[in-house]
């Protein structure tokens, strides 16, 4: 059974694309067949983060319009054989995304992939609602910062009302991924703590990704941080998150992490 996962947030720039790339690569690294779809029509970036920008020929909109076959638009990753990318269109706008069109693409992807990871655009409009529409699992990416938390709350409301799962009486599986976390600043009381965000949003925590320059380096070279630097704290956080998504009963600890807080929250997250 394949699963559709949406990476969403409401607020822009919190790390959705970074997360979609890192997590997809980690899942594929475990041997799963993964397709990662860029829904940010008009502002595509996933191709760049994954280092595939020079290989884009067709995109999601071409497939929706019938101008290209899905197999022609999918770009196979050069490093991980089981990973493919479906880029967004750079020249068209979000109106080119239609509900039926997206539906057709997702259904077709389900036939050949274990995971379909949808990288949502920011906001709560068409692009974002269509990206979450077919999701079985939602990853709410949040920064420990007041406006990001508020927007995440809004997005959780939409996940519970506007997705196919919710409309047919089901429960969409939701997880919180706290990113750009700075332990030092949180412990000094300058930044919301993991527990604060968990208390407020009350969805289960999948992982905490530290603020890390390795993420920027990874984007510079066009390689997800889980591939370019799997031993880094951010890389390990994403790899553990991927394993937990797959159902592994892992605490949030990373074996060689220098970050004490990961250990501290291990117990709570497992509960």
């Amino acid at each position: 059974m394949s699963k559709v996962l949406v990476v969403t947030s409401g607020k822009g720039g919190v790390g959705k694309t970074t997360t979609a790339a890192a997590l997809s690569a980690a899942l594929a690294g475990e041997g799963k067949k993964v397709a990662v779809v860029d829904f940010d029509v008009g502002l595509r970036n996933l191709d760049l983060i994954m280092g595939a920008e020079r290989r884009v020929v067709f995109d999601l909109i071409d497939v929706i319009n019938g101008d290209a076959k899905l197999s022609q638009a999918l770009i196979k990753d050069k490093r991980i054989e089981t990973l493919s990318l479906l880029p967004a269109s750079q020249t068209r706008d979000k109106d080119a995304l239609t509900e039926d069109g997206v539906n057709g693409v997702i259904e077709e992807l389900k036939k050949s992939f274990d995971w379909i990871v949808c990288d949502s655009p920011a906001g709560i409009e068409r692009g974002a609602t269509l990206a979450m529409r077919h999701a079985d699992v939602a990853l709410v990416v949040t920064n420990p910062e007041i406006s990001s938390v508020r927007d995440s709350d809004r997005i959780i409301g939409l996940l519970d009302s506007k997705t196919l799962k919710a409309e047919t009486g089901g429960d969409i599986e939701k997880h919180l991924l706290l990113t750009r976390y700075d332990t030092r600043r949180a412990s000094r009381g300058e930044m919301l703590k993991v527990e604060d965000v968990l208390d407020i949003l009350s969805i289960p925590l999948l992982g905490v990704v530290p603020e890390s320059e390795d993420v920027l380096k990874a984007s510079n070279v066009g390689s997800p941080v889980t591939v370019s630097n799997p031993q880094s704290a951010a890389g390990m956080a994403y790899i553990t998150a991927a394993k937990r998504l797959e159902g592994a009963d892992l605490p949030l600890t990373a074996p060689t992490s220098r970050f004490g807080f990961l250990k501290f929250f291990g117990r709570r997250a497992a509960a």
Partner: protein
Amino acid sequence: MKILDFLMRRSSAPVARDRLQILLAHERSGTGNAELINQLREEVLAVIAKHVSVDPEKVQIKMDRGSPISTLELEIEISGLPSAKAA
């Protein structure tokens, strides 16, 4: 002064948490929306306009969402009442 600055800085995250908790409690229950305020404004005005004339331009409406109580403040300038002196 330095120490005070330091203490103030330490305490900013709890302030953020409290503000969020209050705000989201309202947003989730739907009481934070402008639609409700507009509806209240119209209905209250209609009742008052039955008895005295009201200039819709001279109505101020304020909402202060707090915990545990919130207030809705309406300030309506009315004409056609005898002045306090004359009464």
